[in-house]
């Protein structure tokens, strides 16, 4: 009976990279489609949903998919992880590929804003309206978080300055 030699696929460089960035389950996928059947990214019509991404990686595509934003639409819902019968952990493969994209700066400008917000104030999401809204509901202008806490901000900055993210010039 003809068989698929899964170990043979390891020769593709992109597979090695995905494994290195945390997606080591990628080699176990047999393309059964269980993940795709319940994936919100697939349902919404993004072309490079979990199963497709894994197939592209397994067959050695990299350049062709590096700029595809589909992976950034993944909300990390983890339905795929729950249903995968092969222990592939598709969410982790998607995030491994995102890390490869991020390290090539194949990311959107809105994503860059989140990184600098995190670095400056310790919060990826901020709102210009927040102080007004908080006072309106009877809360102090600032929540007891890093947003108004210089020591906490410095701690976040220290962790980020000493990370590979610092080499990308995104802060």
């Amino acid at each position, binding site marked *: 009976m003809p068989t698929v030699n899964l170990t043979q696929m390891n020769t593709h460089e992109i597979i090695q990279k995905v494994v290195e960035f945390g997606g080591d389950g990628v080699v176990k996928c047999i393309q059964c489609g269980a993940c795709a059947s319940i994936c919100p990214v697939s349902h919404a*019509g993004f072309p490079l949903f979990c199963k497709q991404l894994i197939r592209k990686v397994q067959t050695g595509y990299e350049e062709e998919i590096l700029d595809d934003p589909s992976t*950034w639409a993944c909300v990390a819902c983890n339905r795929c992880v729950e249903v995968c019968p092969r222990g592939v952990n598709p969410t982790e493969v998607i995030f491994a590929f995102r890390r490869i994209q991020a390290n090539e700066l194949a990311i959107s400008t809105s994503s860059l804003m989140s990184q600098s917000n995190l670095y400056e104030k310790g*919060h990826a999401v901020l709102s210009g309206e927040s102080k007004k809204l908080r006072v309106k509901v009877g809360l102090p202008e600032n929540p007891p978080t890093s947003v108004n806490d210089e020591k906490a901000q410095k*701690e976040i900055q220290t962790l980020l300055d000493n990370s590979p993210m610092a080499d990308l010039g995104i802060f």
Partner: protein
Amino acid sequence: MEKCGLYLGCNIPFKAPDIEQSLRQVFPPLGVEVVDLPGASCCPAWGTAPSFDIDTWLALSARNIALAEKQGVDVMTGCNSCFGVLSEAKHVIDASAAKKDVVNEKLATIDSAYAGSSKIYHIGHILHEKIGTEKIKKNLRYSLDGLTAAVQPGCHLLWPTKSMEVTEENPFFPTMLSDLCGALGLRAPTYSNIEACCGMGAMRSTDQEKSFILAKEKLVRMKEELNPDMIVTTCSSCYLQLDGAQKIFRDRGEIDFEIPVFYYTQLLALCMGADPAEVACISDTPRAAIIAEIQSEQRRMK
């Protein structure tokens, strides 16, 4: 009284602080003291450090969890994404002594340390498992008897079960939020896409129109199958999407109905007699009429 660390995240304190107020008001009468976690940062959101470098993500999450550990309390989050990020980080760190060492080496540079002693809960889990529906019922001043809710638990409350302290019997057919609504007297039947994603978060910031496909499908099925008086969710992202996108669909002429949306503790606070000007006053889809109905004289419990 049991204490629990309230991890705020970003969306709740900055975009929906009326949800924060509701959290602060409902827990003490139910026997849970809310402890702040001063200096807590973003969890960090899936689109930030987790999308760049695993160890940086784990260190930032561990720093947040360590703030609770220092006070000897567990963590409760109101935001599903924060719940997912923190639970997953804890799951990964606790599974490997080597990983824990890497994280603590990073934390040592900021005079912090992660032990693994605090658990991560979602507020829905605290309400359902620790407080329980019977205690909730005893603290109500208004009953929602006869009203119908369409519930939206939100993705990260349901999966992945391997990294969560509390899980649904079958996360593809969730029942906890329906139980919590039932405690208020609400009818909260299941519907065909009850477990489906609303499209918020990373999907909306990547492609708004594709994200709206999911949001609209959800809203239309809720309307057609349940004709609900309100939507009730335990996810702050789902709240922002179902409330905000709904208005956009109406303005575009794509839907012709209006369903008010509540985060569960907002509704609970109203039923406990809280001031709507504090706990439910920020929304794109109007809620004044249903709030007046909820706190009307005929709904006051004897």
